[in-house]
């Protein structure tokens, strides 16, 4: 067996520096957008007292969910003992940290009072799942940080197994926490469902792995290193399983809701006559994010095609983004039923009507900056730490 050598992503190529410059530019735009929103107040956004969480939350939740999923590859290597996955563990940890940081920056900069971060850190209401999430996120950085160290430093290798397990359970808790943000909202018909938490976990598996495949392929392309087809095929097949599982969970979620008469209204809204939200659900989430990538990942026609794998992963991400959009924005746009059995004839506060929401440019720029922050951290991290094997050529026969 060949000895595995890790090295920093050493490349002076314009591809690397040009990419980094582009990412920095996106981040700067996002920071300017955040300043604009905080300086003027949220009235410059599309958000209102009806749709209180907008596009920045969609980006933030998407990145946070993907972050815990990106750690999966490392977990498969250390918790479930997959030899093909083990060399990818370090990069998986770095990507997880990057994605989480990107998501949290967006979440923070969309607060009404971001300068009060210190209040959020010093005042805790332990009944709030949000407060728990602050602890879960901080802990995730720490544990994954130690985990990466244990993977890199030979002297710390004794902690490898322990931190591997700790990180695995922590990431499950983290996604449960993120899913529960919605699962605990008893009043809103689209959210009040225990299935939210496990559904978010399976969504994280799928988005995280899609992010992983794309960043891994880009890194190896950037540095002109070898990436074996067999390893990529394993990752691709796993992604297919996760995409199928997300579809299954969505099916169960909607079937359960359809059984409950009280939820017929919101189901009709999402599945049939919700306009943009219905299109996003069927075209975005189900077709682009589910059926097409599933076909591309499993069809023999594409089995050796790297471009197809990259496109399928990208589509999983786009579909996932729409899925979160439908959950977050669609769930708020549908009116809460304050008075069952009554119709609202008039209200100055939009009771009983679908709330309008058109995201502003600034919101989109802040959200994209979150993605750019995640990618920059990964690019800079991979340049400074030995996270990527010099070659990921397929192992010889008998090892897999």
């Amino acid at each position, binding site marked *: 067996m060949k000895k595995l050598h890790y090295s920093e992503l050493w490349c002076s190529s314009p591809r690397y520096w040009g990419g980094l410059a582009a990412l920095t530019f996106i981040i700067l735009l996002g920071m300017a957008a955040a300043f604009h929103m*905080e300086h*003027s*107040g*949220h*009235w*410059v956004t599309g*958000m*209102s*007292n*009806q749709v*209180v*969480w907008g596009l920045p939350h969609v980006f933030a939740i998407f990145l946070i969910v993907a972050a815990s999923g990106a750690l999966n590859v490392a977990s498969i290597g250390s918790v479930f003992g997959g030899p093909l996955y083990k060399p990818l563990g370090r990069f998986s940890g770095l990507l997880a940290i990057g994605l989480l940081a990107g998501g949290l920056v967006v979440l923070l900069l969309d*607060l*009404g*009072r*971001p300068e*009060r*971060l210190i*209040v*959020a850190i010093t*005042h*805790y*209401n332990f*009944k*709030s*799942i*949000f*407060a728990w999430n*602050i602890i879960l996120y901080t802990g995730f950085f720490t544990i994954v940080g130690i985990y990466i160290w244990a993977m890199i430093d030979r002297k710390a290798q004794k902690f490898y197994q322990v931190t591997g397990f700790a990180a695995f359970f922590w990431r499950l808790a983290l996604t449960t926490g993120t899913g529960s*943000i919605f699962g*605990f*909202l*008893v*009043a*809103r018909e689209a959210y009040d469902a225990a299935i939210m938490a496990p559904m978010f976990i399976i969504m994280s598996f799928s988005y995280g792995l899609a992010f992983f495949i794309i960043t891994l392929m880009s890194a190896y392309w950037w540095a002109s290193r070898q990436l074996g087809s067999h390893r990529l095929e394993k990752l691709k097949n796993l992604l297919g399983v996760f995409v199928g599982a997300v579809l299954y969970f969505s099916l169960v979620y909607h079937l359960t809701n359809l059984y409950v008469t009280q939820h017929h209204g919101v189901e009709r809204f999402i599945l049939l006559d919700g306009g943009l939200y219905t299109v996003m659900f069927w075209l975005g989430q189900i077709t682009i994010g589910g059926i097409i990538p599933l076909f591309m990942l499993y069809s023999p026609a594409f089995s050796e095609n790297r471009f197809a794998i990259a496109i399928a992963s990208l589509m999983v991400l786009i579909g996932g983004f729409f899925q979160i959009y439908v959950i977050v924005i669609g769930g*708020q746009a549908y009116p*809460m039923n*304050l*008075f069952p*059995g*009554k*119709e*609202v*004839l*008039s*209200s*100055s*506060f*939009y*009771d009983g009507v679908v*709330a*309008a929401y058109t995201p502003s440019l600034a919101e989109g720029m802040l959200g994209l900056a979150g993605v750019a922050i995640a990618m920059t951290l990964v690019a800079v991290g991979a340049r400074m730490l030995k996270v990527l094997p010099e070659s990921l050529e397929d192992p010889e026969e008998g090892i897999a």
Partner: protein
Amino acid sequence: MAGKKEQPQDIKRREFIGSTILAAGVATVAPGVLLTVANATSEDEGANSEIRWGMLIDSNKCVDNCTACVDACERENGIDLLRRPQGQGDEMWNAQRPQWIRKVKLRDRQTGEVTNLPMMCQHCEFPPCVDVCPTGASFKRADGIVLVDRHTCIGCRYCMMACPYKARSFVHQNVEQQTIRAPRGKGCVESCNLCIHRIDSGATTTACQDACEKDGHKAILFGDLKNPESELSKALQQKSSRQVRADLELNTGVRYTSL
């Protein structure tokens, strides 16, 4: 010799230093003590858990197209002082400006019966907004009033997601003018606080109740739910009333008759 001569002066110096420190100490501590003593008036005592403030709204008496309660609330709490940001359209301004109390007109899908009512924070015994607030800024006072501590609100808006009554508003724009009765800050969440400034200074009615009464409708009755002798308790005993979304078991402090 010189040392002996200087000794009394040295003692004086020490005395001087001592008395200076003492004076400085008194000057530092005294205002605090005085303030505490001055504060200990009945007006500023902590909220009393023997009381639970609540309301009864008689929907039969609530008149279509009347906005007396809404107007009074906006005046009382300085909501009318907020200026629409330049370039803001009508629809968005209405969707974004704070509304502590709003009028809702309903029709029963089966019977066609039409009901008018004011909707505001229901001051739940088990408020979901308090449960979800990460910093504890959203809290319930001992006397049952649910409100937001503007000093610890980080503007995350999770309480607005959790409130089943859409009772909360986020301040979307810069605040130029405000009243000392209802401090307001851009980027914080706020909602009806049952005119806490009035109650704490001994008043027994809210602005909306006064306005409704002045217009001769008497649809709103404010009072102590825990005192069986209060007008509110007596009215609740006599009439059949209900909670909005009673299925959530939040035990609201605001009740409605004829709904």
